[in-house]
């Protein structure tokens, strides 16, 4: 079945093609089913490929599939080739699996939207691009997927582009991504200049040829790219704004898949990272700082999706912290678990928004567990996962990371555990405000309508929140199941052990914490206690009262005013430069040059026109002059050969 790997990418592309050609005719909901079936089929194939890969019993399971020769130019030989190994397979499985569930969910969520088929078109293209990203066997194929997901993210975030904020959020996401892409491209160029190949395996085989300074440079440049894609400091503001997109988009792209592309990339280039300890340390510090900062911001947000967005940034910070310590498997563990529970949380939030007729403000929710029971149960599972309450998956994953951090950089462990406390706290705040306490949602018609898809709900329906249809709750159940039990991957030696599966990919580059059993237990207990205590604190504080200004500093709510900072430092000067170009450079310099050329010709023409006097005798002088010139030429030829 391994030879069918290309189908994993092809099937969503076929779905994209069908929807591109006939989407409008298929309409609501047929287009949605087409998109969903494409991704489900891709998932089926990936399961098959996974099982075949299991059969390969080599120490490092891998399978390469060369599709065609993409760039055959002299020294630059690049193939469109796929590379299947446990790392990419893990990504493929959860990408296609969670995408299938989210596609199914979207059929219900986007029902009635004017551009229903276009949504699934973009989503299929996105899944295809993401799969290209993770299955690529060389940097260029990965970059194609990287750009593809960035573009689809732009399209999907600004899906309701008639709304100014959505259009500008899409632009913001794309621009931040692009800034990161510069780093990625520079890294690719640097790699090429040293080893003249883009293929991962060949690069890793030739690491000693690169030189340690260059390796550090490459790693740091890749980190810049990752900062853009995975929303780390300093390129994270776009993720919060990207919540303008429909909730399934937030769930898929900005929680489960696109933002994890950075994690994948750094894991993929683990040999390079391992060869540069300074880069690793930088990554760890960036990750820890991001985790902390984002967690503080999330504590003060009012929009349910923004809390989840900053939470994503924070969890991604954890993953990079793990990578920075060399604990790649731990990062992957959290990535998988996070995909499940964050996807679940977002879909649950979508369910809440849908049920409340497009209300996103936490202060206007409350006591929803009485009205949205299924949503509440599934959301609660996700909540407890992310808060790292045992025995759910989040506890094991975060614990794994914190153990490795304690062993590698104890200072960062402190940041990690504080962030874990904050995570538990703000998630409990969210749950408390939304599902507990008094009903504050009375009156669904006051307040803006963020989700244009549900505008039609605003009139005629009862304003009481209602549970979502089966098409939206089934994915919630499935995800909550996986979120809960994903912890089994931590059991080493078992059939589900993630370490057994993925460790061989990293080989000796992997960091082993080698903690003594007592150290492990101590850390585990600390984690559990911190989680449970702060869950209770958060719940207690926020299920009783919805307004606590002391705990919601405006500095935090304004995201450390980083948007304002960027505006002052980059935005205004750029605007002034643009205005300068538009008002001065364009009309005076460029137009001036063009018109100047025309003017010069006109002027010279007028000048030359003076020789046309009309007098024959003047023309005769001209003839004589020409004759003298020819004479002179002949003379010079005579003299100088």
């Amino acid at each position, binding site marked *: 079945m391994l030879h069918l790997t290309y189908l994993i990418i092809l099937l969503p592309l076929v779905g994209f093609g069908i929807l591109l050609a006939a989407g409008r005719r298929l309409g609501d909901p047929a287009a949605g089913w087409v998109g969903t079936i494409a991704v489900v089929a891709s998932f089926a194939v990936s399961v098959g490929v996974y099982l075949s890969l299991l059969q390969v019993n080599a120490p490092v399971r891998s399978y390469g599939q060369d599709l065609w020769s993409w760039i055959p130019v002299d020294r630059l030989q690049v193939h469109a080739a796929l590379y299947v190994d446990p790392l990419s397979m893990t990504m493929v499985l959860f990408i296609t699996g969670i995408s299938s569930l989210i596609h199914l969910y979207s059929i219900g969520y986007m029902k009635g939207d004017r551009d229903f088929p276009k949504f699934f078109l973009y989503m299929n293209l996105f899944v295809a691009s993401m799969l290209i990203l993770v299955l690529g066997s060389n940097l260029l194929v990965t970059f194609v997927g990287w750009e593809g997901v960035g573009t689809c993210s732009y399209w999907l975030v600004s899906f309701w582009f008639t709304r100014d904020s959505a259009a500008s959020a899409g632009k913001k996401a794309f621009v931040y991504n692009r800034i990161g892409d510069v780093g990625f491209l520079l890294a690719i160029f640097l790699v090429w200049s040293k080893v003249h190949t883009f293929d991962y395996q060949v690069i890793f085989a030739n690491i000693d040829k690169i030189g340690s300074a260059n390796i550090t440079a490459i790693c740091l440049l890749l980190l810049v790219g990752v900062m853009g894609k995975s929303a780390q400091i300093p390129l994270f503001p776009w993720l919060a704004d990207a919540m303008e997109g429909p909730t399934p988009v937030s769930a898929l792209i900005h929680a489960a898949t696109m933002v994890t592309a950075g994690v994948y990339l750094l894991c993929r280039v683990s040999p390079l990272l391992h060869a540069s300890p300074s880069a690793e340390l930088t990554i760890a510090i960036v990750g820890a700082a991001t985790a902390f900062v984002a967690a503080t911001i999330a504590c003060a947000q009012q929009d349910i999706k923004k809390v989840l967005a900053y939470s994503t940034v924070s969890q991604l910070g954890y993953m990079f912290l793990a990578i920075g310590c060399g604990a790649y498997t731990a990062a992957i563990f959290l990535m998988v678990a996070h995909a499940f529970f964050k996807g679940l949380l977002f879909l649950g939030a979508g369910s809440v928004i849908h049920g409340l007729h497009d209300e996103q403000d936490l202060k206007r929710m409350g006591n929803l567990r009485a009205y949205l029971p299924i949503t509440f149960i599934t959301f609660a599972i996700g909540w407890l996962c992310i808060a790292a309450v045992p025995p759910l998956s989040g506890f094991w994953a975060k614990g794994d990371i914190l153990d490795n951090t304690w062993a590698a950089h104890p200072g960062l462990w402190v940041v990690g555990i504080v962030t874990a406390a904050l995570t538990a706290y703000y998630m409990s705040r969210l749950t408390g405000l939304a599902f507990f306490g008094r009903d504050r949602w009375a009156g669904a018609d006051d307040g803006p309508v963020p989700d244009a898809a549900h505008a039609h709900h605003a009139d005629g329906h009862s304003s009481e929140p209602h549970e979502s249809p089966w098409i939206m709750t089934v994915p919630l159940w499935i995800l909550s199941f996986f979120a809960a039990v994903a912890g089994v991957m931590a059991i080493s030696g078992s059939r589900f052990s993630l370490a057994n599966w993925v460790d061989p990919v990293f080989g000796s580059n992997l960091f082993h914490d080698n903690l003594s059993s007592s150290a492990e237990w101590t850390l585990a207990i600390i984690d559990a206690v911190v989680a449970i205590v702060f869950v209770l604190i958060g719940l207690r504080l926020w299920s009783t009262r919805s307004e606590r200004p002391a705990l919601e500093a405006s500095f935090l709510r304004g995201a450390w005013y980083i948007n304002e900072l960027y505006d002052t430092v980059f935005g205004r000067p750029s605007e002034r430069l643009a205005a300068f170009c538009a008002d001065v450079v364009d009309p005076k310099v460029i137009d001036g040059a063009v018109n100047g050329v025309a003017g010069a010709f006109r002027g010279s023409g007028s000048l030359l026109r003076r020789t046309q006097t009309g007098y024959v005798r003047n023309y005769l002088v001209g003839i004589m002059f020409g004759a003298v010139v020819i004479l002179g030429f002949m003379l010079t030829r*005579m003299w100088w050969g």
Partner: protein
Amino acid sequence: MTAALLTLAATSGHPTIPDVGVFAVAAAIVIAGAVGVVVARNPVHSALMLVMTLFGVAVLFVLQQANFLAAVQVIVYAGAIVVLFLFVIMFLGVDREEDIRAEPLRGQRPLAIALVVLGTTGLLLLGQVSKWTTGQPSVAGSDTGAPNVNLLGKSLYTTYLFPFEATSALLIIAVVGAVVLARRPPATSAEDAVDETPTDDVVTDRTPGAPEAPGTPGAVTTGAVATPAGADVDPADTEVDA
């Protein structure tokens, strides 16, 4: 080049007194006549000086054993062309004097002198330094060995037959052209029937043989306004008769 010519000349003997004398006189005549053509105020005087120059050149031809050409020069050039010139001068009545001191065009005179001086020096220098290009002794055959006329005729009708025929065609065309150019416009053409034809005939048709009085405006054709001679004619009604 000159060196080659000089050796050539040297081998054929040095100049004799009669040769030098004739050359000097002929050269003087030529130069004097040329200067006269340029300087004379009356065009008729210019034409007569031209005749003088042509005669001088004919003498120089004879001196160089180009006898036939000398004869042709006198007959055709001096005899026909200059006479034609005189005919036209008399016919048009442009034998008025022209003020040679004034020069309406700016910079024309200095430029003319400068360019001509440059050109002349250039030519003279070229004569000094130029080299003979091919080694061939001649293109169309020798100029000695038979009487000049025989040689010329033979060459004309064999080697240069095509140019000869072309030139005769040229002559015919020239004659036709001259006739067409010089005739008066047809009096009975349909287009000018409206207001011009009858008057045109009456007004412009001079009695044959009567020369136009000098100083009066010349004949004008359809629609033209007579202007005093020498003044600029209004460009709007200038047409050249076909």
